[in-house]
C-alpha cells in the first residue's frame, strides 16, 4: 500500500480505507459542531459506519484464512458493531427524550447544570 501503488482505475484496499477516513472525519466534525443532541447522535452513527467499512474492507482484502485466522471475522465484527450501534442509539434517544421533557429544548448548550 505504498503511494506508488495507488491508482484510480483499479479499486484496492486503499480506496476503501480513504473513504472510511472521510466518513470518520465527517462524523467527527458533525459531533463537534452540532448543537442539536440528535445531530450529535447522527455523527456518532457516521463514525460507526466508517469503522464498519474499515472492518469489512480488511476482511475482503486480507488472506486471513491462509494465515490461520477465521475467514469471516471482519464481517462478524461488523455485525456486532451494527447491533451495538442500534442499542446505543435506543438508549441515547431515551436519554434525549428525558432531557427534552425536563428542559423543553434539545439544545446541548443548555445542559450546563453541573457546571461549576
Amino acid at each position: 500500500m505504498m503511494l506508488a501503488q495507488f491508482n484510480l482505475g483499479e479499486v484496492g484496499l486503499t480506496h476503501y480505507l480513504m473513504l472510511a477516513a472521510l466518513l470518520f472525519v465527517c462524523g467527527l466534525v458533525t459531533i463537534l459542531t452540532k448543537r442539536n443532541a440528535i445531530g450529535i447522535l447522527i455523527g456518532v452513527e457516521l463514525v460507526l459506519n466508517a469503522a464498519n467499512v474499515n472492518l469489512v474492507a480488511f476482511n475482503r482484502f486480507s488472506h486471513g484464512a491462509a494465515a490461520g485466522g477465521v475467514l469471516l471475522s471482519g464481517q462478524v465484527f461488523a455485525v456486532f458493531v451494527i447491533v451495538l450501534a442500534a442499542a446505543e442509539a435506543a438508549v441515547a434517544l431515551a436519554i434525549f427524550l428525558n432531557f427534552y421533557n425536563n428542559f423543553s429544548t434539545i439544545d446541548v448548550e443548555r445542559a450546563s447544570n453541573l457546571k461549576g
Partner: protein
Amino acid sequence: MSSEAVLFYAFGGLAAASAVVVVASRNIVRMAVALLFALGGVAGLYFLLAAEFLAAVQLVIYAGGTLILIVFGVMLTSKSPFTRLQPRPIEVGIALGIGTLLLAVLVSGILLADCAGAFASEPLPADQGYPMQTLGQALLGDFLLPFELVSVLLLVVMIGAAYLAKARRRPE
C-alpha cells in the same frame, strides 16, 4: 476502469456526498435524510465487498430501524419544523481545522503504510467467496460468547430504554 471501480465510485461518492451534506446541513430532518443516503451507499459498498448478508443487515437494522428511531426522536423533540440551532463560528472553525488535520493524518498514514506482508491488496479469488453457512457457523462457533453477551446486552438495553422513556407525570 473496471465495472467494480465504477460501482465503487458511484456508491462511495453517494456515501461521501451524503456525509458532507450531514455536516453542512442546518436542518435536522435533512441531516437524517442525508444519513439515510449515506447508509444506503455503505450498504452498496458492502455488496461490492462480497458481504451480502451484512449489507442486508445494514439496511434492515440501520436504515430501517436506527434511522427510524432517530427520525422519531427528531419529531418528538422539535418545537417547530424548521428550528435551527447555530453553533458559534469560532467553534465551527476549530472543528473544521481539527477535521482537516485528522483527515490529512489518516490519508497520509494509509498511503505511506507499508504492510505488504500482513495484508495483500488482491481480493480473495472469486471462487473462494463467502457462503452464508460460514457466517452462521462462525456466529455460533468461534464467536458464540460475544453472540450470547450481545443478546443479554440487547435485553438490558430494551428494558433500560423502555424505563427511561416512560412518560412520567411532571411534579405539579
